[in-house]
């Protein structure tokens, strides 16, 4: 279930790919964290992730969770963005037989969830095959 508070809390990272970078050791976290898991640092600077990369792991969802059955079958993957940060997201506009490791992708802004017919809409990035 998505709710207005959850949508709002996720907005900086989901809308603008805002990550944070440890001021001490330089490790980048997405979504942002409060404590660095490498050096225990608590100081971070905001960074914006690149919107291009390649698929490093993928799978096809054929038995989707409630609310996603219209999309079935769809591809999910881990994308390594330019700069090295890895994110998990749907790979949209992509037929299941086309998705493969190494596929170059760009991130696009898409509707990711909706609370029924009358509830709130949630937006975020999805990867799409580079055209």
């Amino acid at each position, binding site marked *: 279930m998505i709710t207005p508070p959850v949508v709002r809390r996720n907005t900086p990272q989901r809308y603008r790919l805002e990550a944070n970078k440890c001021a001490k050791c330089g490790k980048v976290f997405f979504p942002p964290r409060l404590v660095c898991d490498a050096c225990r640092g608590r100081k971070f600077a905001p960074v914006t992730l690149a919107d291009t990369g390649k698929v490093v792991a993928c799978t096809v969802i054929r038995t989707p969770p409630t609310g996603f059955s219209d999309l079935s079958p769809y591809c999910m993957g881990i994308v390594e963005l330019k700069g090295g940060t890895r994110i998990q997201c749907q790979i949209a506009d992509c037929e299941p037989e086309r998705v493969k490791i190494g596929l170059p992708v760009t991130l696009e*802004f898409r509707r990711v969830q909706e609370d029924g017919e009358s509830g709130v809409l949630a937006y975020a990035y999805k990867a799409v095959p580079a055209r």
Partner: protein
Amino acid sequence: MAGIVGYGAYIPRYRIRVEEIAKVWGADAPSYKKGLMLREKSVPAPDQDTITIAVEAAKNALKRAAIPPAKIGAVYVGSESHPYAVKPTGTAVAEAIGAIPDCHCADLEFACKAGSESMFIAFSHVKSGEMEYAMGIGADTSQGAPGDALEYSASAGGAAFIMGTKDVVATLDVQYSFMTDTPDFWRREYMHYPRHGGRFTGDLAYFKHVRGGVEGILKKSKMKPKDFRYCVFHQPNGKFPTRMGKELGFTEEQYRAGLLVPTLGNTYSGASPIGLSAILDEAKPGDRILMCSFGSGAGSDAFIFTATARLPKIQGRARKTRDYLDTNPVYLEYGAYTKFRRKILKNVED
């Protein structure tokens, strides 16, 4: 001088051909293709709407303008398919590009004219000096009722323009608007699909108002059709803008670059703005451009732009409009199209 400092378009990847729609409704595809001068149209993916299209177009405009997004003082989105009936589209776009929170947002609606309207207002803010930059967007994911003539053309796409007075790539030289109250096309509250006045939508609506807009701006600027390298008009189909162009004294040479409708369809609020983006993709310094939108209800906004020496420097910074239109489209069958466009009645899932 005020003008455009960055521009960008976005067109979804999916398409459906006129034949595919005609087959289902027992219509004659060749006569539709000839009558509308239209071969196929864009279709939004199931996870795309006016917000997502406006955001992608805005990101492309920002890539070209290369300005800090926080300096954008306003984001206006014109559309007749805002995802929410109540809750703005503009705030989502401003948030996604990083223009918040020092920003003025508003959503506009005026059938197919809402996009040029957002540009008109954005220009006013930068001309008055109230804002350093302001953004105007036209985007739509319009629907025609199944089997209606509009179903062959109603498509999806959008374009965004950042206005400013510094590092302008196309100066805004003259603007003019032409309005009357004409009931040629409408959609009442809670209705899924729009209705239109059939043949009434031609001479008394589209042609009267585009002619009014173009003749008005030519008179105001003391210019003639031959003074322009390019022109772009609202394009609900291929036939209307072509006939209009010829009647007003423009040549195919002038309207070819901005005429995208044969393979794009009618993107409503996005139509003439996307056409303008395709022209800016190829225009050279000094080229003069005439744009005239049209919105049912009814009215038109006309603009005269001149490309500056800076334009070629930014054209390649984002994906070009023709590239979105021509590269790797995915063709849908009517069944998948109706699922994408949620025309199928289902049981409520959760």
